[in-house]
């Protein structure tokens, strides 16, 4: 961890940015060292050329991972906010049901929930005479949204509970109704505290998206594996997987840095 910053501002040359860039550079360097050192038979392409050939395909797959992550996050957040509000409901039955659902989806492994969604959601749903198709990738989005929902619910609940009770009491003494207090006074304050863990969850979700390749959705990992099968050269395994890892790293590390900056800001502002 870097030391505490006096003003909480983000300095231009934060050592952690430099560390991240160095790590990325190290990854890329190791790629070139790997491609230079391995004995390449003269008739086949060099490793670097093979990498460049497959890079667009792998990158397009990676972009699909990002699309899935954004859609799952949107769906999971919408459902999770509702579940989270259910967790602080005054009705005992509703609260218990929501708590049960939250515990269930939070503690089940992501991959198992993904299998669950893939197998148990029908491939099309008949609604008002129209049949709405559910392709595999939409089922995968739903499957990933389930654990996201439960985690968002916990973040929402935690954020609301962290606001001092005095806020509720003083708002009530001003004759606000319960829903007014919640939406006008508590939630606007709580949102600021919910954002860092929410961003962290998004990074975790993004890193979970390659799971969809296990259930047969074609993502960046699928593309990498098919490229490796097509080439059939074991010496390509190391650089190709490194490239894919570097893509995820380049996307997730800035999110992690941003999260910790915001966390510190929330801590200092209280």
């Amino acid at each position, binding site marked *: *961890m870097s030391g505490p910053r006096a003003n909480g501002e983000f300095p231009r040359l934060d050592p952690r940015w430099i*560390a*991240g860039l*160095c*790590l990325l550079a*190290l990854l890329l360097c190791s790629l070139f060292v790997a491609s230079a050192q391995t004995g390449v038979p003269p008739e086949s392409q060099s490793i670097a050329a093979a990498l460049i050939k497959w890079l667009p395909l792998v990158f397009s797959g990676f972009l699909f991972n990002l699309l899935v992550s954004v859609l799952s996050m949107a769906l999971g957040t919408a459902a999770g906010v509702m579940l989270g509000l259910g967790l602080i409901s005054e009705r005992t039955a509703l609260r218990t049901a929501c708590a049960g659902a939250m515990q*269930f989806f939070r*503690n*089940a*492994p*992501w*991959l*198992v929930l993904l*299998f*669950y969604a893939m*197998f*148990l959601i029908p491939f099309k749903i008949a609604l008002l005479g129209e049949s709405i198709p559910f392709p595999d990738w939409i089922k995968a989005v739903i499957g990933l949204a389930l654990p996201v929902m439960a985690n968002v619910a916990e973040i929402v609940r935690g954020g609301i509970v962290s606001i001092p009770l005095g806020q509720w009491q003083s708002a009530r003494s001003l004759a606000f109704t319960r829903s007014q207090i919640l939406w006008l006074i508590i939630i606007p304050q709580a949102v600021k505290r919910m954002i860092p863990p929410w961003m962290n969850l998004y*990074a975790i979700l*993004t*890193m*979970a*998206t*390659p*799971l969809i*390749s*296990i259930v047969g959705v074609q993502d960046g*990992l699928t593309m990498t594996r098919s490229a*490796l099968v097509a080439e059939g050269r*074991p010496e390509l*395994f*190391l650089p*190709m*997987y*490194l490239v*894919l*890892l570097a893509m*995820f*790293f380049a996307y*997730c*590390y800035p999110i*992690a840095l941003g999260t910790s900056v915001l966390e510190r800001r929330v801590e200092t502002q209280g």
Partner: protein
Amino acid sequence: MTGVADWFRWLDSAYGVNLSIFYDGYDRGRFLVGIATTIELSIACTVLSVAVGILGAWLQGSKSSFVRAAVRGYIEFFRNTPPLIQLLFFYFAIGTLLPTIPDAAGGSRPIVSNMGWAIISFSLFAGAHNIEIFRSGIDAVPPAMREAAASLGHTRLQVFFLIVFPLALRISFPALNNNIVNLVKTTTLAYAIAVPELLYASAQIWSEDFNVKEMMNVLLLIYLLLVALVVWGMNAIEQRMRIPGYHV
């Protein structure tokens, strides 16, 4: 036992709820091996990842900036890349570079098995998180403790392992608890490299018996039980480690 088996057979024929693991010896065997493998994987990874966490947290306090940067790089790499790709990277990329050793049957086998790679990969992944967890625990130990220990003539190593770390461990217990629960959930990824753990065993059963729905529900139930067991066990350890009169 036959009564139970008969009842589940009846359940299948009367209601179409096919829980073959209760009446078919072969399925039951695979399933129990799956549970045992998942537990074995979880325990091995927990022990190793905690060891990695302790070592890393200690190295992060090192005087050499090179060592600190190396540990930092390791943490950031494993925390910000997908665990599934890490596993495949180890299994396919590193695994093919390593030499094979002759086996009893006269063929050759890789020097590290699928299970071995799963343990290595998940331990490094969870270990990176553990370093951060222990590090923040260590930062929360009052500096006066360290100074007092040093003034009693303890060496740096002694101060860390006898005074700072035992206190830091207690402070970081809730976060460690979370991470171990995550680790148990992460063991399902070993499915991707055909380690016969619970998910893999269940997938084999449902693809032969076409009882996806039933096996899915059993699977979720067992994972929830395992997680509950971990939480219960960790809470018990936390209670036992509590120092009377010292509130962390």
